[in-house]
């Protein structure tokens, strides 16, 4: 992930994205600082307690937020390449669907089918039913391999109880 896209254009001056990122970093710093302030003094022979690292991180994140503001003003925030948001959202829907199915006891196999089907769709496939079918097969295969051969427990739902 390093040094990629050297040819990316430099950003524009005062790019609002930079301020959003800086605000995000400040929010993280505030959360860490708030958490650290609630820890109270822990008596330790080390002289520093668990909050010392928190304060350090909070201070550094604040400094980085300021640095990001400066680089936004100077126009140093890279301009992202155009993105197909529909594809990203389709895959995220697949992930969310998978988590929901597992959380509500739908079981491992349907969850994997939804994840597989929607991810393939996000990548441009237009045969959702086929892909769901492949997902079921893959999920079943993994499920049996894990639970029967490795004795690992995977989330169970109505389908998994058949085995």
């Amino acid at each position, binding site marked *: *992930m*390093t*040094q*990629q*896209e*050297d040819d990316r254009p430099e950003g524009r001056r005062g790019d609002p*994205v930079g301020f959003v990122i800086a605000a995000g970093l400040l929010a*993280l710093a505030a*959360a*860490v600082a708030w*958490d650290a302030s609630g820890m109270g003094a*822990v008596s*330790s*022979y*080390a002289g520093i*307690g*668990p909050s010392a*690292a*928190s304060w350090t*991180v909070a201070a*550094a*994140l604040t400094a*980085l937020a300021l640095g*990001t503001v400066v*680089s936004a003003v100077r126009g140093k925030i*890279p301009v*992202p*390449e155009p*993105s*197909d*948001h529909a*594809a990203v959202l*389709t*895959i*995220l829907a697949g*992930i969310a669907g*998978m*988590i929901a199915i*597992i*959380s509500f006891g739908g079981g*491992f196999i349907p969850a*994997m089918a939804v*994840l*597989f*089907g929607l*991810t393939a*769709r996000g*990548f*441009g*496939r237009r045969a959702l039913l086929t*892909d769901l079918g492949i*997902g079921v097969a*893959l*999920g079943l295969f*993994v499920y049996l391999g*894990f639970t029967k051969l*490795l004795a*690992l427990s*995977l*989330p169970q739902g109505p389908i998994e109880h058949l085995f």
Partner: protein
Amino acid sequence: MLDSVLALAQGFSVALEPTKLLFALIGVFLGTAVGVLPGIGPALTVALLLPVTFKLDPTGSLIMFAGIYYGGMYGGSTTSILINTPGESSSMITALEGNKMAKAGRGGPALATAAIGSFVAGLIATIGLALFAPWLVEIAIQFGPADYFALMILAFVTVSATFGDSPLRGLTSLFIGLMLGLVGLDALSGQARLTFGVPELLDGIEVTTLAVGLFAVGEALYVASRLKHAPETIEPVRGSLWMTKEDWKRSWKPWLRGTALGFPIGSLPAGGAEIPTFLSYTIEKRLTKHPEEFGKGAIEGVAGPEAANNASAAGTLMPLLTLGLPTSATAAILLAGFQQYGLNPGPLLFAEKPDLVWGLIASLFIANVMLVVLNLPLIGLWVRLLAIPQPWLYAGILVFAAMGTIAANPSPVELIMLAVFGLLGFVMRRYDYPIAPMVVGLILGPMAETQLRRALQISLGDPMALVESPLAATLLAIAALALVAPLIFKGLSRFKAEED
């Protein structure tokens, strides 16, 4: 030392019995097969396969363990290279260059240099284990918290090698990683940090969940987002499937340097397998004749860290066998394996059960050979996986990423973290933030903090304790030098440029 050689020969006569060879082969095979599953590192692999060995005799079962252990270590790197999904934290660095190589059609050489590098490293480190274990271990236990802290600082210096071209964005990534490292119960005081009342967060953030989320899920989202505009083309094979002469030339030194880092650090009771891979990556990046390739798929960046990873695995066995010290999760499970036969590794094991110990060491050599024999022919098969149509390939990657995550920890909270880290990885890719520093921060942050506070607690708050040990002072000096040297070189070269 002559005694050791004779004992080792005796060990080979045990390990070369046909049935024992079969156990080693099964072990290597199972270890590789389970180890390639993303999110499932060697520790879980060995834990899962432990019951398989229950009914074997002790020697046979331990030999199978050795195979599983090495197989699991190797399997982890395969997924890193092919699908950017590290199975364990120590193969995270391998993914950096390895996956870039795979996408450029050089997956074959990447897997080959990983396999052969692991072999070379495993071989040298196992020889080291056989010959020097008793002495090295005496040195290793002299390492105190201050020395470890200095080692962590040295490792931190290496993070900058993964920063890319913007220190600001690199540091941002690193500190978000350090922040994630705060999450959970503080090791020294039991105080909960950044858990916000969620009990699942008390154990902290799993490194593999972060790595798989950022690398695999983030990558899938990013590639999908670019599909319409600039579709990614993956070529399974471009040029040679096998390593070229040039590849060999560029690999052999990194293998040896990686081994030299991995074995000693791995044998330290709190050294770990990650730090040598970070150090190796940094050194290779500094020494390479092709710095422009780093970040785009430099073979040195696969060869060095993989060798370091495997050498440290052999190093870990040293304190385990000679002192009974399990210094990694995998070693702890191996220890449990020993104990199920009423064997207690430690100073007496060598004296009481020489057959078994030397049989095990001999079978490490054999497992190592089998690993390379088994895996080199498989490379062609592995690489062909990249020929799977892109929608199915990435859908399959996400299924295995999700599966690895819940297999290790079956909780929806873990999956939600995976999704959040995936989204974060996507956003970071869009704005050109490097990803590796975040994972490095999560790994090193808690280690460094714990050792620092331990050192201070033992010295009753006296900071001088951090530099009093000559070892710690030396390591800190190297770290300072490594930090300052590039600046000086840069200054010098600028000076020269002006003169010209």
